[in-house]
């Protein structure tokens, strides 16, 4: 009976393609992209700092960086998000808006992944590059700025596209703290229209359309930078 019932489901795409849903969808999209873009920028800055600390091998900093990356890579984003939104205010008395909390949590999370990607990119540089720079008399700072970072960033670039993909997907979790992003809009509309199947199908397609070009870009970058 249930099988028959589901086969007989009457799809009504009017629930998706109407003025109201399209307008809310665009608002949601704007929030999703904004949150991702900010988290990408802050996360990459944080990741670069953390990678630098880890590679410095300086006693307290390297360990702190290590604990940070491992903590954020091994705990669920949803838990991190809820922690920032509900626990930080209780512990420290800081209250952030949902959007700010979301950006903080996603930046911290992306920062851990960025740190690993940058570290990998830099560690992949052959020792000979350091040796040559040293024999040429470059100072350590010059070596890092002109020899190591440009190559490390280039090595890391394809993987950063994957971080953006993860951010886009993870940003849907912000719906639980009522950030008006794409998933949140769909949730509220689904509750109003009783048409969750159409709306969530459209939502999945929307995420695919957003992330798939990035995934292609990533593999293109990988091919492009392998040459030299």
């Amino acid at each position, binding site marked *: 009976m249930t099988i028959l019932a589901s086969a007989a489901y009457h799809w009504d795409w009017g629930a998706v393609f109407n003025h109201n849903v399209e307008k809310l969808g665009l608002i949601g999209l704007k929030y999703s992209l904004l949150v991702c873009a900010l988290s990408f920028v802050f996360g990459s800055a944080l990741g670069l700092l953390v990678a630098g600390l880890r590679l410095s091998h300086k006693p307290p900093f390297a360990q702190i960086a290590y604990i940070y990356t491992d903590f954020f890579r091994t705990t669920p984003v949803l838990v991190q998000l809820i922690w920032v939104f509900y626990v930080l205010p209780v512990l420290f008395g800081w209250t952030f808006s949902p959007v700010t909390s979301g950006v903080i949590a996603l930046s911290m999370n992306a920062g851990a992944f960025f740190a690993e990607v940058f570290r990998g990119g830099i560690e992949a540089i052959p020792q000979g590059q350091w*040796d040559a720079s040293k024999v*040429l008399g470059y100072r350590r700072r010059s070596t890092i700025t002109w020899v190591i970072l440009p190559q490390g960033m280039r090595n890391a670039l394809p993987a950063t596209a994957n971080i953006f993909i993860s951010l886009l997907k993870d940003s849907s979790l912000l719906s639980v703290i009522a950030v008006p992003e794409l998933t949140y809009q769909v949730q509220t509309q689904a509750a109003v229209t009783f048409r969750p199947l159409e709306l969530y199908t459209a939502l999945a397609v929307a995420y695919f359309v957003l992330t798939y070009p990035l995934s292609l870009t990533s593999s293109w970058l990988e091919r492009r930078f392998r040459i*030299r």
Partner: protein
Amino acid sequence: MTFESHLGDSDATRIDEVERARVFGGAKAIEFVDVHKAFGKKIVLDGVDLAVSEGEVLVLIGPSGSGKSTLLRCIARLLPIDSGEIRIGGQVIQDGAAGWRRRRDITRSSGMLRKEVGMVFQNFNLFPHKTACENVAMGLRLVRQLPKDEAYKNAVEGLTRIGLGEHLDQYPGQLSGGQQQRVAIARALALRPHVMLFDEVTSALDPELVGEVLNVMRELAQSGMTMLVVTHEMGFARDVADRVIMMDGGMIVEEGSPTSLLTHPVHARTQQFLQRVVDR
């Protein structure tokens, strides 16, 4: 092709010549005094004594693992030594017996000597994200602090001199191995070093590309550069070296003129080694 101009006549060069006369005046270009170096328990340099004169071309031969690269890398200060002393132009650049404070002082006071030593590696170690020209110009800007246009002018001159004038804007990945190695030599020479170290610089090259690199080194030797060359090219050793040194087990087992050492080796280990190289 000539290297006369690598001791060119710009102001910067003249100051260097004065500096050099002060630092090097009369002293040996390179001296090793009872140098020891180990990696963990593995002894790699076992009491090396060595003196290289100004303008001398020294070829180092010896079986794999005998410590040839380590010896060069200690001169280039890529590796610290455990005991003994290394001097460049009479000035101590490594003192194995020194505590950290003295080591720091040595590093500081001999900082200027760093650019006196140029090194070329087996696998080029060019900067892959920079063009040939940029590879050479970068050191001129960062180390010699030349303004951009002057650095590039010098780089173009240096590369043109070794026949790479056509390849200025190509990336290392677009050049043949021989061309890459010549860029690496130009990059080192651009800083006008006093001593050049070559560590098996033709070993990674296709046989037909070895000649172009050896020719550049030959010219350089004729221009009076002090050179330490690790190589398996016995022809080069015979033609160019003033002295050949045979290393084994971290020690210098035998040394002499190329003709005597390569044709009438005294030591059994030298005989065995040369036999193997010839057979190859």
